[in-house]
C-alpha cells in the first residue's frame, strides 16, 4: 500500500458520518476510506459521536407487538455468514466497482478532447461525480470552482502548482482555488472527481465545450 499524503478533512468525515453528504461525495469519501486506514479510523471516531447521540437520545416507544414482529421476522431470516469479502482485483475499490459494475474495462468513456476521457456516474443531482482519464503528461484544462471539488487519484499521479497527488491521495479544492493539474509522465492518470457545482473553464474552447462535458 503506497503512503497516502493527502487526506479527507474533518468536516467531510463528520458530514459523511452524519449522513449529510450528497451521494456523489459519499462515493468519493467511501472510495478514499477503502484505501486509507487513517481516514477509516477518523470516520470511525465520528461514527462514535452518532452512536453516543443515539445512546442518549430520548426514547419513543415502539408499537406493542413490535418485539413479537421482530422475532417473527428474524425467524425466517438467514444470518449472513462471515465470508471473505471479494477484494476487487483491479484499481477500483469495492464501492466504486459497485457503481461502475466492474473494473476499468467496464467504464464507458467519452472523449472530451486532447486525449482526455470522462465517464459521469449516475447519482442524485445535488452533486455530480465522474471518472477522468488523463494521458500521462497532459494538462487538465485550467479551471476554477464554484462550490467544492474532491479529486481522488486511482492510478498514476498529477501535480498542480501546489503539490503532487498519487494513488489514494485526495485533493479538496474550493472556490478560491484556480489550478492547472498536469498528469505526470509515466502512467496515464485516472481520477474520481466530485463537485457540487459546475466547473468553469477559463479558456474559450473549453468553455464552449463545457455544456458538452456536462460539467
Amino acid at each position, binding site marked *: 500500500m503506497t503512503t497516502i499524503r493527502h487526506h479527507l478533512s474533518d468536516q467531510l468525515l463528520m458530514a459523511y458520518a452524519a449522513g449529510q453528504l450528497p451521494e456523489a461525495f459519499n462515493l468519493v469519501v467511501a472510495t478514499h476510506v477503502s484505501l486509507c486506514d487513517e481516514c477509516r479510523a477518523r470516520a470511525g*471516531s465520528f461514527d462514535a459521536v452518532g452512536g453516543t447521540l443515539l445512546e442518549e437520545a430520548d426514547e419513543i416507544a415502539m408499537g406493542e407487538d413490535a418485539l413479537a414482529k421482530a422475532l417473527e421476522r428474524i425467524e425466517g431470516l438467514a444470518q449472513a455468514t462471515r465470508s471473505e469479502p471479494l477484494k476487487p482485483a483491479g484499481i477500483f475499490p469495492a464501492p466504486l466497482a459497485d457503481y461502475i459494475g466492474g473494473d476499468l474495462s467496464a467504464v464507458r468513456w467519452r472523449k472530451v478532447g486532447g486525449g482526455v476521457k470522462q465517464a459521469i456516474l449516475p447519482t442524485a443531482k445535488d452533486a455530480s461525480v465522474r471518472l477522468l482519464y488523463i494521458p500521462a503528461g497532459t494538462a487538465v484544462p485550467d479551471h476554477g470552482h464554484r462550490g*467544492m471539488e474532491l479529486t481522488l487519484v486511482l492510478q498514476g499521479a498529477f501535480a498542480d502548482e501546489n503539490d503532487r497527488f498519487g494513488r489514494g491521495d485526495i485533493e479538496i479544492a474550493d472556490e478560491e482555488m484556480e489550478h492547472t493539474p498536469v498528469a505526470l509522465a509515466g502512467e496515464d492518470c485516472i481520477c474520481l472527481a466530485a463537485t457540487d457545482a459546475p466547473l468553469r473553464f477559463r479558456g474559450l474552447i473549453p468553455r464552449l465545450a463545457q455544456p458538452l462535458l456536462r460539467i
Partner: protein
Amino acid sequence: MTEQALSPLPSGVGAGAGSRQKRVGSLATTDDTDWAALLVKVRDHQDRAAFAALFRHFAPRVKAFLMKSGAGAALAEECAQDVMATLWQKAHLFDPTRASVATWVYTIARNRRIDALRKARRAEPEELDWGPEPEPDQAEVMEAQQETERLGRALAALPAPQRTLIERAFYGDLSHSEIAAETGLPLGTIKSRIRLALEKLRHQMG
C-alpha cells in the same frame, strides 16, 4: 435550502437542562449492560433472548432518532424494525474492538435513513479483508465501550450551543457545508485506538 436547514429544531432536539439530566440518568442505568456480549451471542448462537434485550434498548432510540430526522411515526417504526433485523443479519461484521454496539446501530440507522428519506444510495467503504476477530481481546473490547461512555460524558458537558450544533448535524438539520469540523469532543483518542486495532489486524493478516 439554507432557510430550511436553519429553521427551528423539531421538539426535543434543542433539549434543555431537564432533558440533559434525564440523559445522564439513563446513561447511568445502562452502563452495566454488556451490549457487545449480547450481540456476540446473537452472532455465535442466534440467541433470541439476547436479540430481544438489544431490541428493547435500541429500537425505541432508533425510532426517536428517525423521527427527529423528519420521519413520521409509522415510517420510523417500520425502519426501526428494519434496522434491528439488519443488526441480526450483519452481526458477523460487528467488531467490538472498533465500535460500541450503539455506534454500530447508529451506522445502520443512518444508512436506513438515507435510503428512506433521501432515496439516495450511500457508498460504504470496502469491508476489510480480514473481518473482525472471532475472539477479540476483552481488554480492548472494554476500552472501546468505556471510550463511548467517556464520549457521552464529554458530550453532556459541552456548552449547550455547541452540543446543539452537533445534534443538528447528526439529525440532518445542517447541510454538509454548514457542518463545523471542530466538535470540542475528545475524538483523537478514539481515532488512535481504532487506528491501532486496524494496524494490529493488518499485521496479523500480513
